[in-house]
């Protein structure tokens, strides 16, 4: 049985996706035909490929080609210098860690240390050696 009434949303959707063909009513009914035409226009506008001019595409190819021959860009240089910088930083940290050890080294040589300790001892001895036997007479 052929539907004599206007198409509903379900018929239009099925037609739009190619699941249903136009029937007698749709072909002859001006209102349903108008709706079919409108839906067809909408689908065409959505699915149509964007218009790209040949000039635009040519310019794009030229730009790509010219960039292929340019030297490495900044990010490429960064890629090269990043490990070098990391190495330098690690070396600096190593040196910094070694510095306290260097600071802990004696300030003076063993020879100087011995000499000044001896001088210090001499300066601190309050009595001449010669009087020590006599001085001991007064000690308890």
């Amino acid at each position, binding site marked *: 049985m052929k539907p004599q009434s206007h198409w509903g949303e379900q018929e239009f959707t099925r037609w739009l996706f190619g699941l249903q063909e136009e029937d007698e009513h749709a072909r002859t009914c001006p209102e349903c035909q108008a709706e079919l035409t409108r839906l067809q226009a909408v689908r065409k506008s959505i699915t149509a490929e964007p218009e790209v001019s040949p000039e635009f595409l040519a310019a794009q190819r030229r730009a790509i080609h010219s960039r292929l021959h340019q030297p490495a860009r900044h990010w490429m240089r960064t890629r090269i210098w990043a490990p070098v910088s990391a190495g330098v930083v690690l070396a600096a940290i190593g040196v910094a860690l070694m510095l306290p050890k260097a600071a802990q080294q004696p300030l*003076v040589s063993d020879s100087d240390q011995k000499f000044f300790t001896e001088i210090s001892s001499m300066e601190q001895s309050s009595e001449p*050696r010669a009087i020590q036997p006599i001085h001991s007479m007064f000690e308890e």
Partner: protein
Amino acid sequence: MRRAVLVLLLLTGTLPAQLPRRFYAWWSSPVVQDLNLTAEQQKKVRETLKEYRPHLQDIRTAVDGAEQDVEEQFNADPMDPQRVDKAIERLIAARAELTRTLTQMSLKLRTVLTQQQWQELQKRRPGQEKEK
């Protein structure tokens, strides 16, 4: 002879009181680690010690010689009071020169330190607690 002994005994009793507080080689003690001397300060300390060392070596020789001289005069028989006096004067002069030179060197080393380091050094001076 009595006068010589008296002078020496007085010397032993009064000289330490006149000296600045006991000199000690702080730069070769562990205390120096706590002062956090900069590389420039360490350099200046080394230079100062190097500068004074030859003169201090001469003074050490002079003090040792004078000590020996006094001992010889004490052991002499008979004693020559004039020679004893001379030996004592030499010893006093040598010790005074030692004190003078060490004090001058210490003053120069003091100028290398900051006020804060100087205070820290005084706090850590050996025997500081006993003197308080």
